[in-house]
């Protein structure tokens, strides 16, 4: 019986190539967009891979200095001293890393100069973030402590600088300093791991960075579990109470916010730099509202396509009824037809999304992007398109099937 329905569905699909094509395209494009959006959102807010420990990680990227007398405010990245003296000793933190912002640095090779982004990090950085090491190794605690001039490149940079040659072991002049490449890691585009090159923090030309309160650093705090977030925040607030600025005439009070990924983006996008609440809830609300609005279009589109098509097919329904088909049989026919369309469209969408994401990663439109398709979201998207497909395809068919064959044959439109 099912085979019969499938056969009818197949024939109908072939007979109305245009409609089938458009319907498939709409379903798969919708799923494609949904999958790409969620893959990018997931990579930003809840990444896996390098920053896979994000769910138990807090970060401090901005210090807010306040002037109580004149009401001035300064927002700036942290200084290394602030991190070592105030954030590293927090008892609830398992590990605290300091890493500089990516800085454009000139790399000198015989006959050419390349401008690349360099981060300088301490040893804990390599423990908190799980870089995928392709060749060699990442700096050890010993390298950092002894100030060895060792350098880690990412895959694209290694290829750009050395071509097909083995990068590990090569000497490299970075910003006038002579480094040795000790490792190559996979490309990554995540908040704290985006860069072209990495070097130990101790390779700065001078040790002055150790005495800076504000500078170019951000702090990553790894806790044992997300349950410790509140404790870390409380301890941080206690630690910086009565903080002494080196320039007490200009600044007297310090604000530091230890944020999760979501809170970090919420704070920066919504500009909540001076209050403890980052506004994560508002950000989620805004994103969900936007997603809903965007998904309303394909839903409506599907409904439009299907209802139009069904009205057109009322003659066919009338003929089938006149030859003795029951409403049940008609219902089954349209159910199977829609299911088939949705499944094929869904699989096509999955393929398209995989292709689109692979193309995005390959083309370098977004540098270093590495994302995965979320199969849960795919399932959910497929389910939604199925629901809308059935609602819009089967309900009109059901209503037409109720009509007298004569009326249906004349066309339900009139």
């Amino acid at each position, binding site marked *: 019986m099912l085979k019969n329905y499938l056969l009818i569905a197949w024939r109908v699909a072939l007979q109305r190539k245009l409609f089938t094509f458009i319907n498939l395209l709409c379903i798969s494009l919708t799923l494609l967009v949904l999958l790409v959006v969620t893959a990018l959102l997931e990579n930003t807010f809840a990444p896996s891979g390098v920053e896979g420990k994000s769910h138990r990680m807090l970060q401090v990227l901005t210090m807010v200095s306040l002037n109580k007398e004149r009401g001035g405010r300064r927002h700036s990245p942290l200084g290394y001293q602030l991190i070592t003296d105030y954030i590293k000793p927090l008892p609830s933190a398992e590990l605290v890393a300091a890493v500089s912002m990516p800085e454009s640095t000139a790399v000198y090779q015989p006959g050419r100069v390349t401008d690349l982004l360099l981060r300088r990090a301490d040893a804990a950085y390599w423990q908190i973030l799980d870089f995928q090491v392709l060749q060699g190794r990442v700096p050890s605690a010993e390298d950092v402590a002894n100030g060895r001039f060792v350098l880690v490149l990412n895959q694209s940079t290694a290829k750009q600088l050395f071509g097909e040659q083995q990068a590990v072991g090569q000497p490299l002049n970075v910003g006038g300093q002579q480094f040795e490449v000790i490792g190559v890691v996979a490309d990554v585009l995540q908040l704290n791991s985006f860069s072209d090159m990495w070097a130990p923090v101790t390779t700065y030309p001078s040790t002055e960075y150790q005495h800076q309160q504000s500078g170019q650093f951000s702090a990553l705090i790894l806790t044992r579990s997300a349950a410790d977030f509140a404790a870390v925040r409380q301890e941080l607030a206690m630690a910086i109470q009565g903080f002494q600025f080196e*320039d007490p005439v200009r600044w007297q009070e310090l604000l530091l916010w230890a944020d999760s990924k979501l809170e970090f983006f919420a704070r920066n996008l919504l500009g909540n730099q001076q209050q403890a609440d980052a506004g994560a809830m508002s950000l989620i609300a805004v994103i969900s509202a936007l997603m809903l609005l965007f998904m309303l279009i394909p839903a409506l589109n599907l409904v439009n396509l299907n209802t139009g098509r069904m009205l057109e097919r009322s003659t066919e329904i009338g003929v089938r009824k006149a030859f003795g088909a029951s409403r049940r049989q008609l219902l089954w026919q349209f159910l199977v037809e829609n299911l088939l369309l949705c499944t094929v469209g869904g699989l096509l969408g999955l393929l398209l999304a995989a292709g689109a994401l692979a193309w995005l990663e390959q083309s370098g439109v977004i540098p270093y992007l590495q994302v995965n398709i979320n199969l849960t979201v795919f399932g959910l998207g497929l389910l939604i398109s199925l629901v809308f497909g059935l609602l819009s395809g089967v309900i009109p068919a059901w209503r037409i099937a109720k009509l007298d064959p004569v009326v249906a044959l004349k066309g339900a439109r009139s």
Partner: protein
Amino acid sequence: MMLHLLKLVWQRKSRHLLLSLEILLAFMVVFALCATAGHYYRLFHLPTGLVHETRWQIMIEGQKFEELSQNPLEQTATSGSSAAVQPLMAQFQRALQQIPAVQQVAFTDMLLYDLSNQSNTFQRADTAQSLDVNMIAVSDDFFQSAGLPLIAGRGFHARDNGAVHQPVVIDERMAASLFPDRDPIGQLLRYDEANSTESFQVVGVVAALRTQGELMGLAPTLITRLPEQSLPTILFLQLAPGTDRGIEQQLLQQLKQVRSDWRYKIEPLSQKRQSMLRVQMIPLLILAVLSVFLLSMVAFGLFGVLWQHTSQRIPELGLRRAIGATSTDIYWQIIAEQLLLNLVAVSVGLLLLVQLPLTGVLGEHLDWPLFGVASLGAMLIICVLSVLCALYPAWRASRFTPTEALHYE
């Protein structure tokens, strides 16, 4: 004719309602994309007040701020004999200008093209109207070395030493919001804090100064004068065109002559700008890629529905041809009907969207000019798209003979 078309549209009202709803939604999405793209395009092309070519920045590290607190005392004691100790800023300036490639030397209290930012709240001395502004302090030569032209008034000079009101230069945005009714030059400002006694006088106006560069949001900006005796933190240099990084050694040598116990970090401004832009562009690139996908989804959806919608009417169009309508008539009918449908959807969409600039929820991110451009752009895209989608089936319909069209299924 119009009335007749309206009647045609009305007869299929339930079908058209769904269709216009989809056009309405598509219009809103396209509008959002246009507005975002327009916002960033405008932001990128608005003046930053900064020239990055041949400009270099030197960050000075290792100062002890106790020196600063000694300085004012020293200064008041020796104010009669100014030649006693030359301020450090002047010493640096002299030392650096011995290098022929150095054209201008100035100082600031904040790195340019950097993530840091300073702000404060100021109020008009007479009306007490207050405003949040971004702040930067610069030395007297900054305007020349940065290539920042004053559009009214003057910059800072040595005669400002010991002035009753501290001189400040403001940008046009601040001038427009605080002094819309009068010439800002000569007006007095003070800190918003009640217990503050310092007062400021506007001496000049610049077009804009966005210290973080091209993608920094627009905000009123106030430039204060870095007193000659202050402890230098950031040096801002203008070098001769074509100077390469080989000059760093020479610069360092001269700097060390002034204070060998301080550390200096030398960097071309173009390079700093590059790292800022590369990092800031990533979210925008992601957004752009998403919009391309979204746009294609909207376009294909509309295309499919409109195509089907027009194809269904091929028998009707055949009938019209049979009773004497030319294919041009058919085209016009289809286009006019489609535009009528668009008009309804777009006007409802505009009615909803106009609330955004009216209520000002998005503030300056969506002002009237941007709203105008974005709605026009979105309207154009939707109209062209929907007319194109409807025209192709109409063209097919007009090529059928009336008999074929009447039997079309």
